[in-house]
């Protein structure tokens, strides 16, 4: 179930690389920059819930309460 997210992120990275090189080749550097930013934000939105889950799991397992 969770393994899918790895392939998703790798696919996003490869697709953004391709889009980026196409946009740079056709002379739209600014849009290429925005594509890069959008990719980073997209992946960040995917990994933040996962990171929250990891931290809350560790907290409950090792009984850390602050």
């Amino acid at each position, binding site marked *: 179930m*969770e*393994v899918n*997210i*790895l392939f998703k*992120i*790798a696919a*996003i*990275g*490869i697709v*953004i*690389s391709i889009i*980026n090189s196409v946009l740079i080749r056709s002379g739209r550097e600014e849009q290429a920059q925005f594509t*890069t930013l959008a*990719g*980073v934000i997209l*992946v*960040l939105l*995917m*990994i933040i819930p*996962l*990171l929250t*889950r*990891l*931290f809350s*799991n*560790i*907290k409950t*397992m*090792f*009984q*850390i309460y602050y």
Partner: protein
Amino acid sequence: MEIIKIVGIGIVCAIFIVLLNKDRQEIAIQLSIVAGIVIFLMVLNKIGSVIDVLSELASKSNIQSFYFNTILKIIGITYIAEFGAQICRDYGSTSIASKIEFAAKAIIMYLSIPIIFAVVQTLFKILP
């Protein structure tokens, strides 16, 4: 046969990270974070059952639960800090990694002060 799954995930992730590392390093770092999280979540319930057994043993052998909880807390803090520091170090921010480790050491010292205090108190009781 969890280990075969985990090794497979690790190798596939490493290949993807090498592929993305050239010009999409920001995605490669996120991919490595996700790989770490997924592998940890796969072995989570096994660590949980080990901790359950250990806490039962501790309660049977009359160790105060406060001390056991402190040790558990220290292990958890170490794991989280190591996770963050490794990722920072992998992608070149060595200074931030060492600051994370310093913070973890400070917090661990703060948590272990009661234990040190108890040890010293016992020592004073034994010594004439």
